[in-house]
């Protein structure tokens, strides 16, 4: 067989020079050490993983090691890593990257991640994997540093774009790759132009939903794997949304995609304990709620019923949240004075916040770290003040915080405060698994957001059980949503990661709008109930089918052992 053999002769010249100069010559011991060092660094086999031996301080989970082996040995280093949220895709990517670097197969590495995660990736690669990754800040970094972490938005823009496209990368890692599903975007076009020797695309959102998207993503990684557009349409496309030969497509996709599900990893997950805590409004609070509900009947609100809905939800949270919205409404439309001012008066009459009182009681009885989630900034501020009045220190948390501030707040919460009050789940990559209690002070209408909230603490690394407290204000819209939606779909007990698939499958991404729509346009309580039931059973049906599939799978596996 004709093989390229390349002899590196750099050593020769220096050796001849030393012969001419009669030295200097090294010592026998150093000579031996040099050889031993090289022996230790040499790779004994094409197969297997070297990296874990280099990373003794990391404990890899079995499925993570399996993913790395599969990607390197079966997929030749081009793969979509699509594990469910919380199974450690970043760890898997780091492990694969490290393996290639140890083997000398990768030197120049580009890692494209959302802007908010650049520093986190850089930090983790350095501290966990000893990979000297550098966050792209100046344009010389592209050329001078070997492992660069950047946001795709920076990389695709000039003057960076030309420089980046000129580099010979050995590995390209792209986090949140589901954002590359549409081939008509600038991002897609940019990634398409990158020279991809080894390439990892990370995504938690399964891609089998839309025919187009899976084709685009796979074609980016490995053009032709699913044929060209024409073949693909012929072989797999039924109509715009549905597939044919699904099994065959799945097989093909699985050749370039690894996806572990939580239940398949065999990991023991901490238990979830869910408790609904009813809140009874005080008389003045009830008056306020009623007077807001009455607004719906006024002709001037017939076209902005949605804002009434918002106000109702806000009253359930805090009078502060509600007041702010009323004030804004008044500013926008001075003519509404005669309707809004009386309501504002009612706000002023409210003397206590029943929910906050309950919160205080609960926080005191838990006597451990607690995260409180609320939808409203005004409530967040109020709660912080209120808890402070009772000697409980808390840390605020908002999605809009810069990464460094988020990290700092997490640090403060971990070491100095009992309570974290957050207005949203804090986005990707915030891990609060040292905390075991979540209070859903008010409920978002999108079940995905609840899932994200719980996911912050219900993840790998959580040592104890997880307690979730849902506040429901009696005889209000809040209680209704809890009963109609959440309790029906068993959301709180279900497994993370299932819901996103279900919602994506039905394209229920705008579930919030959908629910508002039901709330607003139902003529009667009965109609509302029927519609919500339909929604819940739709979600449940899908979940149920999947559950059954899993059980059958497990049964089949068991029987094969007997």
């Amino acid at each position, binding site marked *: 067989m004709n093989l390229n053999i*390349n002899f590196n002769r750099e050593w020769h010249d220096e050796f001849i020079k030393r012969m001419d100069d009669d030295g200097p010559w090294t010592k026998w011991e150093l000579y031996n050490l040099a050889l031993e060092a090289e*022996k230790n660094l040499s790779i004994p086999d094409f197969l297997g993983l070297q990296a874990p031996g280099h990373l003794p301080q990391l404990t890899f989970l079995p499925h993570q090691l399996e993913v790395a082996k599969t990607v390197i040995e079966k997929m030749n280093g081009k793969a979509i890593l699509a594990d469910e949220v919380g199974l450690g895709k970043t760890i898997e990517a780091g492990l694969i990257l490290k393996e290639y670097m140890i083997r*000398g197969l990768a030197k120049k590495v580009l890692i494209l991640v959302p802007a908010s995660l650049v520093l986190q990736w850089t930090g983790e690669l350095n501290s966990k994997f000893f990979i000297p990754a550098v966050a792209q800040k100046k344009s010389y970094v592209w050329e001078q540093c070997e492992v660069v972490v950047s946001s795709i938005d920076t990389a695709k823009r000039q003057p960076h774009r030309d420089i980046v496209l000129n580099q010979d990368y050995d590995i390209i890692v792209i986090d949140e790759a589901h954002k590359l599903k549409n081939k008509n975007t600038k991002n897609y076009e940019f990634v398409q132009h990158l020279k991809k020797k080894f390439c990892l695309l990370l995504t938690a959102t399964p891609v089998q939903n839309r025919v187009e998207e899976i084709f685009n993503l796979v074609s980016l990684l490995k053009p032709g794997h699913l044929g060209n557009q024409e073949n693909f349409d012929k072989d797999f496309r039924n109509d715009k949304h549905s597939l044919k030969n699904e099994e065959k497509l799945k097989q093909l996709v699985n050749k370039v995609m690894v996806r572990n599900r939580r239940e398949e990893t065999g990991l023991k997950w901490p238990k979830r304990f869910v408790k609904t805590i009813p809140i009874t409004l005080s008389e003045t609070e009830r008056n306020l709620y009623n007077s807001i509900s009455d607004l719906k009947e006024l002709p001037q609100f017939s076209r902005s019923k949605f804002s009434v809905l918002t106000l109702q939800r806000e009253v359930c949270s805090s009078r502060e949240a509600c007041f702010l919205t009323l004030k804004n409404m008044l500013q926008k439309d001075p003519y509404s004075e005669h309707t809004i001012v009386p309501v504002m008066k009612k706000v002023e009459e409210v003397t206590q916040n029943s929910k906050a009182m309950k919160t205080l009681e609960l926080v005191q009885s838990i006597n451990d770290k607690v995260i409180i989630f609320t939808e409203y900034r005004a409530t967040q501020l109020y709660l912080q003040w209120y808890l402070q009045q009772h000697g409980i220190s808390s840390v605020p948390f908002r999605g809009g915080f810069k990464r460094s501030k988020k990290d700092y707040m997490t640090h403060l919460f971990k070491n100095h405060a009992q309570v974290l009050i957050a207005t949203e789940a804090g986005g990707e990559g915030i891990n609060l698994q040292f905390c075991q209690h979540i209070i859903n002070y008010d409920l978002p209408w999108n079940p995905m957001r609840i899932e994200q909230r719980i996911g912050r603490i219900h993840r790998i690394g959580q040592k104890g059980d997880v307690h979730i407290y849902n506040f429901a204000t009696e005889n209000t819209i809040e209680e209704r949503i809890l009963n109609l939606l959440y309790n029906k779909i068993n959301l709180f007990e279900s497994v993370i990661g299932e819901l996103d698939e279900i919602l994506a499958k039905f394209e229920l991404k705008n579930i919030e709008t959908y629910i508002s729509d039901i709330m607003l346009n139902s003529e009667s309580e009965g109609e509302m109930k029927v519609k919500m039931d339909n929604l819940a059973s739709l979600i449940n049906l899908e979940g149920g089918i999947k559950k059954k599939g899993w059980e059958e799978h497990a049964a089949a596996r068991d029987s094969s052992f007997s």
Partner: protein
Amino acid sequence: MQQHEIHHFLERYFEANECSVEARHPSYMKIQLTVELDKLLMNRPFYWHYLEKTGGVPNPMALTLVTGQQTPQDGGGEFIHFGSPRLHQIFASTKKLGSFIRMYESIAQHTGQNIALHPWLCVNMKTSYQCDRKKDRISSYGIHLITGRMVESFHDKLTELPLTRKIPDFCYTLSPFIRPLSGLKRMEALVEQEIQQDDHSWAEDARARWREDEELLDRFYEDEEDKPEYYHVEKEALRTQYEPKINVDIINGGLFYLSETAMS
């Protein structure tokens, strides 16, 4: 590499580099670096530059390295394990420090007769087989620079001989007939020959994977007359990903003057 092996390696390394060991413990060590090693390991060129300009007294740093569970009582210390950057830096430095050698067989001479030492050129090599995967093999060859005879596993045989840096009394060296460069060429030819006889199913497999991906790529763009730029980029990427190649690097080597019977 186990922790105790790392510990042993580090001890030998610092001793060979004439650093004084200030604290010796099975679990850690405290090393006073020499100027040379400070420059090599501590990454502070400005300090050394400044010192040379001002003519100050050099003050090389001390290094505390921890390899086991216990840390020194005054705290601190870098934990060293197989993946730690410090160890890899030290590994890399051995290549600079231990690349070229000249040694003599140490022969105790009683008869008063002069003994001839024969010139051998030895190289230790790393052969890397690389496609989208990689494997290394380390080998060692010696060539007799008079007869041209070549010996494999030369280094292992050397380790069984008593060697010294200075030519022993009553010994003299024979001049080589074969120039070292020619010797190196002959060894390359031998290595090449051996490689050709190896089993190279790994390379055939890699080419098959390469072909497979290339066919997919061609099919993807088959309808386009003018292939877009990224077709060519992708094609080139496949070559760099799969193309089998073999690299031979010299780790270290040098001249060894040995008695006539040493390698027989």
